[in-house]
């Protein structure tokens, strides 16, 4: 990853094609993997991918970590707050849902409520 301090130049321009390659491959991979997710799990899929886009926290940390004036500090910290809520909430709520999906029990042991 590029450091917050070094930017510009032919290097980066050249790396564009490489990044684009990664993007295109990732899209194809995503379509493959996600088309195998059963309809039953589409809500957890959505909240799970929700958690995954929380990866913007990495970007938020970079800008907050390199912030050097009030403006960049405020923007950075707000981005960190939003992204953290996204990450933690996304994974926790997905787990809550997934733990509810159970197979039929080998023959009930409880007949509560």
């Amino acid at each position: 990853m590029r450091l917050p301090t070094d930017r510009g130049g032919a290097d980066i321009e050249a790396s564009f094609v490489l990044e684009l390659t990664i993007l295109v491959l990732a899209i194809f991979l995503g379509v493959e993997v996600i088309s195998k997710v059963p309809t039953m799990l589409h809500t957890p899929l959505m909240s799970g991918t929700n958690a995954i886009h929380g990866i913007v926290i990495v970007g938020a940390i970079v800008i907050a970590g390199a912030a050097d004036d009030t403006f960049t500090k405020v923007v950075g910290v707000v981005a960190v707050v939003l992204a953290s809520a996204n990450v933690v909430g996304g994974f926790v709520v997905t787990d809550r849902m997934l733990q509810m999906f159970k197979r039929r029990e080998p023959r009930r042991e409880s007949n509560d409520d």
Partner: protein
Amino acid sequence: MSRTTTDALYLVTIVTFILALRFLSSPKHARKGNWIGAAGMLLAIVVTLAQDGIGNYALIAIGMVVGGAVGLIGARRVKMTAMPQMVALFNGVGGGAAALISLDEFHRFAGGLTTVEATSTALSALIGSVSFSGSLVAFAKLQELISGRPIVFRGQQIVNALIIGTAAVLGVWIAAGGDRQGLIYGLIVAALVFGVMFVLPIGGADMPVVISLLNAFTGLAASATGFVLHNNVLIVAGALVGASGTLLTMLMGKAMNRSITNVLFGAFGQVQVGSGAARVDDGRTVRATSADDVAVMLSFARKVIIVPGYGLAVAQAQHDVRQLAELLEEKGVDVVYAIHPVAGRMPGHMNVLLAEANVPYDQLKEMDEVNPEFPQADVALVIGANDVTNPAARTDTSSPIYGMPILDVDKAASVVVMKRSMAPGFAGIDNELYLDPRTTMLFGDAKDSIVKLISAVKAS
């Protein structure tokens, strides 16, 4: 930490995300997959914090604690019926974070950005902002803070076109090397307004499509941010989310037999209420029945297919339905649940609601799997579902829902429809099914009716 090490460790994170999605192919391992993904996320966070040139640790820590706490409390407290709002909110904050990152990058480096970086900055700011404000409106609609009905006014399309046009011009300006700060502010404001304007005219019933679409947007915004920061993990993770959101959007559109353009820009204002004049009064009448009669029917059936709709969740009757199903199974009845793709307020919502009520997932059958089973079913028990059971979708070319895939409820030997009243469903049209000679109606609140059914089945 060197750049190579950082990138190598990010690759590990990428692998965990892909594994998390792969494990979702079966409910058996899905939970494990989620934690693998979470571990990968944690790794990425630690790696980023350890990177050279990162300071302001106290500031970052405060942000993480505050955001994390909010996310945790929200995720723990949210009711399963409110999951669509929750997902909308997370889409929104993710998009918002992406937009802020672009704002910051532009603020610091405007003029020194390469064309690709400048373009990506503009895209990330645009998509992230639309996703942020659009998701907040979707949240407000689902949470019923504002009316769930489409909000429309004259010239709306033109106003929207002007707003997005403004955003596009500013975006191109930035991409072309414009370095005035006003450009990015203008872009973000226009995009925020557009997000609001684009979700307002979309009705509550179409929310599954909108949420899926906003999910895809946030993924794309994250990907664009990856191009700004030259960060592979952002590019890949964003692409995965984008692919998922796009697939779900298309799936929802298909399940409602509507094109995405139609959902976003179409139908509102021109939903023809087909009832009344168009209705053919051929003397067929609706037959009402009692809980006792239905109980006998169910008890002596070999196979019962339960068709739950959102009405079931509104009545909070999931647990009672599960109890009824268990009671019937004890009597030797084969019971399965037929789940239409748009049952609920987001893709797969009904499955989660039933899983929460301890319905085992092997009893939950999706449309294509269960439709061939209806002819063998003695009773189809429709609870709070309407349009997804309307045979007009198969036969009546003039019907607004013509062509929409439906559950073949009418092929069962007999049909019991549990319904509050004769009010039509979302599409605002009459349901042929109710006039079918094999159909009987059990009127009343779903929860009350099921509780009555349970005691009647116990007695029979």
